[in-house]
């Protein structure tokens, strides 16, 4: 008995296609105003109001070490991370796909270690790679001041 292929919601992030397991994806939302959080880790672009819930918005471009977006508006992919929901800022949403296990390929070794450590696998298909985000790695967003405090 072969297991059902996992389904992924896909998102365009810079020139890449990044996938999130559908089971962990709560919803996808249009761009909306963010409140910046001074002193927050660099990947955190701010907090956002989603129907009264206040979610932390993590910029996937920064998280994956990609070029920052020229355009500040970005769609929100709301994912479940342990006991809370988190908004991932993506350029725009793509389709839901279910790549067969046979399409799995190694994450290209030429990418940065930081990039590789934040993905759980990659699939080849339709002429482009799908990188599956390792949601557990979002815990790697830790305290790093956004702006240096004035040195004493």
């Amino acid at each position, binding site marked *: 008995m072969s297991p059902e292929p996992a389904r992924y919601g896909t998102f365009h992030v810079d020139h890449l296609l990044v996938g999130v397991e559908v089971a962990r994806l709560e919803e996808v939302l249009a761009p909306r105003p963010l*409140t910046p*959080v001074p002193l927050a*880790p660099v990947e955190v672009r701010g*907090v956002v109001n989603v129907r009264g819930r206040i979610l932390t918005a*993590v910029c996937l471009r920064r998280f994956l070490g990609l070029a920052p977006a020229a355009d500040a508006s970005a769609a929100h992919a709301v994912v479940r*991370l342990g006991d809370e929901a988190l908004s991932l800022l993506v350029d725009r949403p793509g389709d839901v796909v279910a790549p067969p296990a046979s399409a799995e390929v190694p994450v290209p070794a030429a990418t940065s270690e930081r990039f590789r450590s934040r993905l759980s696998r990659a699939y080849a298909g339709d002429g482009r790679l799908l990188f599956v985000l390792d949601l557990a790695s979002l815990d790697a967003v830790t305290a790093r001041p956004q702006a240096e405090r004035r*040195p004493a």
Partner: protein
Amino acid sequence: MSDDGEIVAAFLAETAEGLDRLETDLVALEADPTSPALLAGVFRTFHTVKGTSGFLGFRQVEDLSHAAEDFLGELRDGNLQLTRAHLGGLLEVVDALRSLLGAIRAGGAEDDRDHEELLARLAQRGDERPAPPVPPPPRRAAAGPGTTGTLAERSVRVDVELLDRILRRVGELVLARNQLAAHRGARGGGGLDAPLQRLSALLGELQADVSRTRMQPIGQLLAKLPRLVRDLAGQCGKSVRLDLDGGDTELDRSVLEAVRDPLVHLVRNAVDHGLEMPAARTDAGKDPTGRVAVRARHEQGQVVLEVTDDGAGIDPERVGRRAVERGLIAPAELASLSEAAILELVFTPGFSTAAAVTTLSGRGVGMDVVRANVERIGGAVGLHSVPGAGTTVRARIPLTLAIVPALLVSCRGSRYALPQASVLELARLGDAALGHPERVEDTVVARRRDEVLPLARLDELLGLGGAGREAPGTVAVVQSGEARLGVVVDGVIGTEEIVVVPLGRHLRHLGAYAGATVLGDGAVALVLDVAGLAPPAGRSDVA
């Protein structure tokens, strides 16, 4: 929103409720497979979903609910005997419908999904194997399905966002009343005293009434549990009876939202870790069917939520051993602890990880997270366990979230909330109360009456840098413990009653914030934690 949008939104809300009811009824049907009332209820719900989805052109929802309706028709007419496999199929239909609703909610349309196999299985009337023995029915203290008619006629459906808006408006009214009272104070009574008092009394009552509209019965959370327990029990190979009690206990909806995850986690724990396998239970002289009870009740202005299992209990010796293995406690320290104190160790972060994690209760969420979640909303969690007899986890939670009056200030184009309890007064640099800032060595201070008050710019406190900007002149004098600090802000916007919501895990450690709040216009403002606003070392640009 367009008319169509409203129709679809209403369809989504009603169907989501219908699916919740279906799930509860289907699990109840498992225990009582021939109940005409339950069969009719399930049939009716599928029928309604089929009708509305067909009208709105959601083809997949229609096909699935149609197939389920046909299938139930045969059951109802007695042509078919309900088996466990049938029920599994029907629950799969509920899951499939739910994910289609999710797609419609997110994208306005059904996503492309293949339900052929499920439809074919329903058409073939599923598996004809005889049903294995089913566990006894979950006992529900609340009224059963189909008895809510009179209540429904006396209630209306209101969007919760509208309720939130009304609550905020009441907060604004309170603010306007305060301004009016201050104005009157300045120019003397003028016959306004009596109407103002009346206004205050009415506002108080209005606030209490509006708060009550946000109360929801915890039953809607409990209604998810029979399905959860059924699935979990199946996966673990255990036989479980679930008792629910106190479903009509009411809580503010934001509190309800906050206890959802902890409750689910506690129930998962009880089934997965608490209860023994049937054989082990028989050996121990217990009923092979384990019992999990979830009870809610009001007590002293709080809600008490209990999850009890009659499983093996928690062995303090094992807990102690594990805590030592994980380096959470030194062996010598362990020896000095009472049994109750040792049990408390299960709430320590890092206690329930790796080895203890199964696919069911795992997901890296331990008792520490349950405790953190409950404490975040001002509650408390305790644990009581008797080896061999079972475990009870008891959470005390507030009825409503703390609504605190706050001062809204602006800084660098953003709004921040300062809880008013920590604000002593507002002043301007250079006015009589504060005087002009002076530099004393590396600190900038102002004389506030007979004390010397250290000053710090908010943008500097928040690491935004203040250099090169003209010093703003408004000062909020705040107090934390014994320490006082003059926080220099760009301006004061006003006061507002806010509901403080905790920040997510990536921001909770920052110290500068007590949480965040949604303002009247829907934007989020950070709530400053006065104790965490450490004045920066070194010179400042206030002077």
